[in-house]
C-alpha cells in the first residue's frame, strides 16, 4: 500500500466528515445561511430595477457577482481562517504527529472547503431561481463555463488563503488580513454595481485581482449572451478570464507548498502555547 496515496484517501474521507460536521453544527451553517438570506434580500430589492439600456433585471447581474465573490471569500478568508484556527487549537500539530498526516490534512481541507462552497453557492443559486424566474432558463446552457470558472476561481484563491493562514499569528489577524481586502476589492470589482461606472484607474486595479474575473466569468455562464453588451469591452473575455485566474492559480500553487512546509516545520506544542498566551495577554 502506497502511504501517500493512502493518506490522500484518508484525507478525502476526512474532508467528507468535516463537511458533515459543518452541516450538523448550527453555528457556521447559520452564518453562511445568514449571508444567503442577506443576498436574497438584496436581490429582492433589485428585482424590479433594470440594467440601463436593457430589459435585464439588475438582480440578474448581481447574483452571479455574489457567487463569484463568495468563491473568493471561501478561498481567501475560509482557507486562511480555518488554517489559522487549527494551528491555534492543535489540529495541525496532531496531523503532524501521525505519519503522512499533513497530506491527509491538506486534502481534507481542500475537499471540505470545496464542498462547503458548493453547498453555499447552490443555496444562493436556489434563492436566485425562486426570485428571478428567468435565471434557471438562461443558466441551463452555462454549466460547462460555470464549472471551469468555479474550479479555476477556487484554485486562484485557495492557495493564497492558505499562505495567509500560514503566516499570521492568530485567527483574528487572518480574518482582518483577508476580509478587508475582499471588501475593498468587492467594492471596485463590479459585484453590486457596474464596474463601468468607476474611474479608469480603479477599473485597472480591479482587473488585476481574481474577484472581478470571477464575477465576469459567472455572469457569462448564467446570463444570456446579449448581456455581455454592458461589460467593460462589450464581451465576456473568456480568454482573459482564464489567463488572469490561471496566473493567480499558478503563482499561488507554486508559492503555497514552500510556505506551508515552512509553517508546518515550525509548528510545535510550545510555539502554539506561546501564541495562545500572547493572545490571552492582549485581551
Amino acid at each position, binding site marked *: *500500500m*502506497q*502511504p501517500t496515496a*493512502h*493518506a490522500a484517501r*484518508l484525507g478525502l*474521507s*476526512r474532508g467528507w*466528515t*468535516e463537511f458533515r*460536521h459543518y452541516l450538523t*453544527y448550527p453555528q457556521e451553517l447559520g452564518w453562511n445561511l445568514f449571508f444567503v438570506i442577506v443576498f436574497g434580500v438584496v436581490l429582492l430589492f433589485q428585482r424590479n430595477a433594470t440594467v440601463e439600456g436593457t430589459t435585464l433585471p439588475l438582480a440578474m447581474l448581481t447574483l452571479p457577482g455574489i457567487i463569484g465573490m463568495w468563491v473568493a471569500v471561501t478561498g481567501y478568508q475560509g482557507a486562511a481562517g480555518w488554517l489559522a484556527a*487549527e494551528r491555534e*487549537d*492543535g*489540529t495541525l*500539530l*496532531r496531523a*503532524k*504527529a*501521525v*505519519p*503522512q*498526516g499533513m497530506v*491527509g490534512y491538506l486534502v481534507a481541507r481542500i475537499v471540505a472547503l470545496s464542498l462547503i462552497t458548493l453547498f453555499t453557492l447552490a443555496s444562493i443559486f436556489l434563492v436566485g431561481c425562486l426570485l428571478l424566474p428567468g435565471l434557471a432558463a438562461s443558466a441551463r446552457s452555462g454549466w460547462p463555463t460555470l464549472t471551469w470558472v468555479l474550479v479555476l476561481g477556487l484554485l486562484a484563491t485557495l492557495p493564497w488563503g492558505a499562505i495567509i493562514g500560514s503566516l499570521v499569528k492568530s485567527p483574528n489577524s487572518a480574518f482582518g488580513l483577508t476580509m478587508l481586502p475582499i471588501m475593498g476589492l468587492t467594492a471596485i470589482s463590479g459585484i453590486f454595481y457596474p464596474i463601468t461606472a468607476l474611474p479608469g484607474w480603479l477599473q485597472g486595479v480591479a482587473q488585476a485581482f481574481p474577484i472581478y474575473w470571477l464575477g465576469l466569468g459567472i455572469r457569462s455562464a448564467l446570463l444570456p449572451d446579449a448581456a455581455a453588451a454592458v461589460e467593460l469591452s462589450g464581451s465576456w473575455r473568456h480568454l482573459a478570464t482564464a489567463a488572469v485566474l490561471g496566473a493567480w492559480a499558478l503563482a499561488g500553487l507554486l508559492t503555497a507548498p514552500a510556505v506551508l512546509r515552512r509553517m508546518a516545520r515550525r*509548528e*510545535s*506544542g*510550545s510555539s*502554539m*502555547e506561546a501564541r495562545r498566551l500572547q493572545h490571552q495577554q492582549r485581551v
Partner: protein
Amino acid sequence: MIALLGPNGAGKTTTIEILEGFRMRSAGEVSVLGVDPANGDERWRARIGVVLQSWRDHGRWKVHELLEHLGGYYTPYATPERPRPQDVDELLFLDEPTAGFDPLARRDFHDLVHRLSDLEDTTILLTTHDLAEAEQLADRILILAEGRIVADGSADQLAREVAGQAEVRWSRGGERFVHATPDATRFVRELFAQHGDEVTDLEVRRASLEDTYMVMVHRHEQGHLQEVSA
C-alpha cells in the same frame, strides 16, 4: 519507562519536542530509534507515538471517528510483529499527560501505561510534575534543571544518592519520637534491643522522590548562585 522531571522552564518540553522532531536542536547530536529526528521520515514517524499537551483540537469529532481516522494513517506501516495499527508505536512520548486528571482517570491511565510498557514492549518517555506518579511508573528518572540533567537513576538510587537520611517515628509510654538517621535498619534494631516491647507505632520513612527532587533542584540552584557570585 523514563520520567523527565524538573521545574517549569527547565527544558522538559523542549527536550521532548526535539526528540519528536517538532523542533530543531541548536547544537549537539540527537538519535531516536537510530535516526536523527530532524531528518526523520514518515516511516520513522510511524514508529513513534506522541501524546500532546493540548486537547482543544477536533472538538466536533466523535472519539471513535477520530480514532478510526488517525489510526488509519498507521495501516501501511503495520508489520507481522505489530499487525494492529494501535500497536505500531515502539516509542511513546507523553508530555504531562495526567495534568487535570481526576484520581480515577489517573489510575486508569497508569494501568494503560503499565500495560503498554510491560506487555507491548513500548518504550515510554514521560514528563510530569506529579512526583508520586514518576516514582510509581518510571524505571529511570531524569531531573532536568536549566536545560541540564542534574540527576539520573531509579527513584531508589536517587534517594540514596541525595539524602541517605530516613525518618524513624515511634511511640513509647504514650510519647511520640522522631529521629533522622542514615541507617534506619540499624537504628531500629538498636531501638528494639534497648526498649523491646515498649516500642509501638513504628514507622520508617525513606526519603521520597519528592524529597530527593527538592534537594537536587535546590542544590543546583545553590551551585548556580555561587557561580554567579564568584
